[in-house]
Every structure is written in structure tokens, then in C-alpha cells.
């Protein structure tokens, strides 16, 4: 068997542009490739892929494979796994990285089992052991209560998905040179057993939660859908977005896509305000990267105070209207 070499990252597009997770993958991929003293490649799969290949080069890639065919218009497990299986067998990378996204979390494990190798999902840190050259993969476990570090001695490529916003992208360098290579996986269409019939997008009013600079999160203690209106008003005043812990989503007070946490959205705003939520490890997994954390909770022992920068102990029903009015006053003056 040929020796495995280099790092391959699986890119993604978001609204036709290079996704931020892909820039982050290129950042960590470049670092690992340099540590190995080998090359960094990226691959994009889709239909009608635009200029992202060139952009990936400016962000660190040496080679960019483009798999462009109507067969890949929608993400379907069978077709994407099939394409990557061919490319991985062809190129034999030492390390293969994907994003922990809707696509990556479905694709990575299935591909790993296809290739007969191990994968670690949702990593927040990747380093190369200087002695063994093995990839050490750190990921939160037990809902974020603990951290585990994994290696795989056997099975190549060494695979991982990385959590969005966990890695730094490189500064774009337009003078970087690289090669764009079309790749035809020659897939048999009959091997694709599923098809996307419809895509239903949740309507987003205002700023997208993941992109917001201010996030106001409500928890179970908010109590009702009506009470969430106040949080929406606060978000509007502060130019932010509303999020929630799981109970308000499960209870239907807010739509499911507002859930922040391990199995919801990841946010890292400049200002996060958590109201009437306890700060479970699973919720923290989605917001602990926030730069300034404010907590309002009637229980002084609530977990959220353990990671908050500013805290107020008290009933939010009394506190919040006064806070809101004062914010309005300060921001208008």
C-alpha cells in the first residue's frame, strides 16, 4: 500500500460562497500540513461551484479538487460518501478533516467506516504529536462536562470533524499559488438510494443567530411563548438575535432552530445575555465562546454564574423590564 501523505479538507459552500468553517479548516489544515512538512489539499463537491477554489488557495490550500456534477446538486449521503471514497483512495491523505456541520456530521462517520478507519467528531483542538506524528484530537464529552483526547494508531487517513469557530482561519494572501484540479469520481448513479424531495427553511426574522454580535438567550424559567416577546424586544434594541435553551424549543415557545448548545447552534457573540436558564453543560457547549457573558437567574447557585462575567440574582420578570427601559434610555441618549 502506498504511504499516506498530506492533509485533505472537505470544503463547503454557504449561499454560494466559501463557508466560514471551510476557512477555519484550511487554517488548521495548513498548520498540520506544515508540521508534517507535506501538502494541503481541499475538495469541493457540488453543482455549479463558482470561484471558491481560488479563494481556498488564498486561504492556504496547495491543491483544490473540484467535483462538479448535477448528481451532487443536493447533499445525499450515498453520493458524497462515494465521491470522497474515490478521492481519498486516489490521493491517500494522512489526515482528512471535515466541518462539524449538517453535512460533515453525517458524511464523516459513514466515510470513515467505508475507508475502514476511525474518526473523532466535533473536535475543538488538533495537534500533531512531535514524536509519533499521530494526530491528537480533543473533543468535549459528557455534554461538555469533560474533555477527551483521542488518537488512532491504526487506520488511515486519520479523520476528524472540527467544531465551527474553534479554529482560526489564515489571513487571505492573494499572491499564494496553487492548482485547481477537476476530479471525476465516476459514480454509478444507481448506488444512490436516497433523494431530497424538498428543503424547508425556517424563516429567520432579523439577524441570523450564528452571525449576531449580541445574543439574548431564554431558558425554561421564561415560562411561555408570550414572555419571549420581551426578549425579542430586547434583541431588537440591542441589534441582536434571540436564542434559547432546549426546553423552550421542545415546548414550542420558540422554533427549534433557535436552540443553542451541543445539539443546536453555536454562537460566540461579543455580548451574550442568558435569562432564566441554568447553564447546563450542553447549553454551554454552544455559547461558552462568547466574549462577554451576562446571566440573570433567581438561583445564586445556577451553573451559568460559573462562566458569567456579569451576573444578577433575581426574578427576571421584575428585572428585565427595568433593564430594557434603561437600555433604551442609554442608547437613545
Amino acid at each position, binding site marked *: 500500500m502506498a504511504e499516506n501523505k498530506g492533509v485533505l479538507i472537505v470544503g463547503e459552500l454557504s449561499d454560494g460562497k466559501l463557508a466560514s468553517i471551510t476557512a477555519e479548516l484550511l487554517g488548521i489544515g495548513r498548520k498540520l500540513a506544515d508540521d508534517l512538512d507535506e501538502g494541503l489539499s481541499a475538495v469541493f463537491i457540488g453543482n455549479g461551484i463558482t470561484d471558491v477554489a481560488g479563494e481556498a488557495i488564498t486561504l492556504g490550500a496547495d491543491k483544490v479538487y473540484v467535483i462538479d456534477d448535477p448528481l451532487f446538486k443536493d447533499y445525499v449521503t450515498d453520493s458524497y460518501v462515494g465521491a470522497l471514497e474515490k478521492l481519498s483512495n486516489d490521493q491517500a491523505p494522512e489526515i482528512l478533516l471535515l466541518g462539524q456541520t449538517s453535512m460533515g456530521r453525517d458524511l464523516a462517520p459513514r466515510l470513515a467506516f467505508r475507508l475502514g478507519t476511525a474518526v473523532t467528531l466535533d473536535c475543538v483542538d488538533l495537534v500533531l504529536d512531535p514524536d509519533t506524528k499521530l494526530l491528537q484530537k480533543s473533543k468535549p464529552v459528557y455534554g461538555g462536562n*469533560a474533555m477527551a483526547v483521542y488518537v488512532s494508531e491504526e487506520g488511515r487517513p486519520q479523520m476528524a470533524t472540527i467544531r465551527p469557530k474553534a479554529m482560526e482561519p489564515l489571513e487571505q494572501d492573494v499572491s499564494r499559488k496553487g492548482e485547481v484540479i477537476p476530479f471525476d469520481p465516476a459514480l454509478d448513479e444507481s448506488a444512490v438510494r436516497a433523494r431530497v424531495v424538498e428543503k424547508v427553511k425556517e424563516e429567520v426574522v432579523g439577524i441570523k443567530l450564528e452571525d449576531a454580535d449580541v445574543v439574548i438567550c431564554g431558558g425554561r424559567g421564561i415560562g411561555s411563548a408570550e414572555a419571549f416577546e420581551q426578549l425579542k424586544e430586547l434583541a431588537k434594541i440591542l441589534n441582536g438575535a434571540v436564542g434559547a435553551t432546549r426546553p423552550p424549543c421542545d415546548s414550542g415557545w420558540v422554533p427549534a432552530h433557535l436552540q443553542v448548545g451541543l445539539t443546536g447552534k453555536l454562537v460566540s457573540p461579543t455580548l451574550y445575555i442568558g435569562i432564566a436558564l441554568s447553564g447546563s453543560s450542553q447549553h454551554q457547549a454552544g455559547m461558552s465562546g462568547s466574549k462577554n457573558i451576562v446571566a440573570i437567574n433567581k438561583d445564586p447557585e445556577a451553573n451559568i454564574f460559573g462562566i*458569567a462575567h456579569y451576573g444578577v440574582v433575581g426574578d427576571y420578570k421584575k428585572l428585565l423590564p427595568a433593564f430594557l427601559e434603561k437600555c433604551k434610555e442609554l442608547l437613545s441618549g
Partner: protein
Amino acid sequence: MNMIVCVKQVVDPETPAAAFKIDPEAKRAVASKDRPLVISPFDEQAVEAALRVKDAQGGKVTILSLGGESAKDVVKHSMAMGADAGVLLTDPAFDDSDSFATAAVLAEAIKKIGEYDIVFCGRQEADWDAGQVGSGIAELLGIPSVTPIKKIEIKDGKAVVERVVEDGYEVIEVSLPVLVTVSNELGEPRYATLKGIMAAAKKQLINWSSQDIGAVPAKSKMLKLFIPVHEARCEFIEGETPEEAGVNLAVRLREAKLL
């Protein structure tokens, strides 16, 4: 419809951080005395998903769990909810299973169970949060997989599922047999009824060991497990009344240039 649901017994994920302890040598969490082990929450939803299909068109639901002796509790719990049969895989040879080995052993057990149209898993375990055993089983069985889903219906011999994605969901049509992993958007799992609990108590579990289905070596190794420490740094804002505290918070955030 023949359905198989994979469920795992875990340390209660709602254990507050202050009570959460690990054994760094054994590299796993230590269950606290006042919190019994539970069925991993998404697995309970996977059982619910299977029972909804059974409610709609009949069929048989078999529960499958790999774990210690105590894992029989989560199999019985699922049967009390309405599942028909249970298989428990216990053997010291399974103790060091990573995700790869777990999926391989479960896939072997599924083959031995024989007939299946839908295999259900949770989207991820509440202990290792690995999120890959479901896809792994599907790959080893050579059947399609859709992950994670919030709804499944059978129409004209195919499954129509709703797959949860970042900005909504996708409706996907997929051939049977299929493996799906279930997410909390499915909705609350049903409670076990008294009748269900009594019926489950009477049923025998099938016990298989490595002699029945073989064992598989792990492919990955955990180097270490630790609890990250963060410094408490919270500045508490006070006031004579809650209203005053609210005003003071706004003033303080303004001072800190956060408003």
C-alpha cells in the same frame, strides 16, 4: 415493519456540573449515588420514533443494547414503553469497545436478529457524544442512512423522513431497509404505562456474548480524560430592588462599552 432500536445506558446527563466526577485512570465518569444510570435521551426518542411507526402500520420493535448487566434496565424500560422484544449484549470482551467496535458488534447482532426494515439509533450518546455508531452500523450492514431525523413515515414501500439541518429540515425519500438516527425535534417520548411495565417484566431478554456474535478490536485510543477548569470571575450587580438591579446592570454594561 420489522424495527430494531439501539439503546445505551449512560450516566445521567442532567447531573449538575458540580456533582459530575470522573475516574481519570479508568477514563470514564463515575455515576453519582443519588443519580441512577438512565437510557441515553436520544435513544429514548429513537424508541418513540419506532413506536410511532408501529402505531401507524403495525410491526415488531426489538430493542438492542450493548453494555453491562445493568443495561437490562434500559432494555426493559423501552419494552415497557411498548417495544416487543429485547436483546442484551454483555461480555467483558466488549468492555474496551470504541465507536468502531461498538458499531461492528451491534451490526453483527442485527444480522443475527435477521429481519429488519428500519434500524433506529439516537443522534449521539449522552456520554461520549461520539455521534457515529448509527452511520457505522448502516455502512457495515450496507444499507442507506439518514441522520439526524425528526420524523419518519412509510409510503409505498419507502421511508419518507425529515432530516434536521442547520436552517430547517429536508424531506428525504429513501429505500428500505434504512437506518435513521433520531433527534429531540421528534418530540417527547411516551411514558411507560403500568400495563406496559407489567408486560415487560414478564418477557425474557435474549442474552448474547462474544461467543454468539464475535468481538472486534478498537481502532482509536483515548489518551486522557479530564475536566477543564474555568476560573469563576463573575461580577455580581446588585440593587435595593430587582428593578434597581436591572437598571444597574444596564449602566454597568454601558460603562464596559458593551451597549
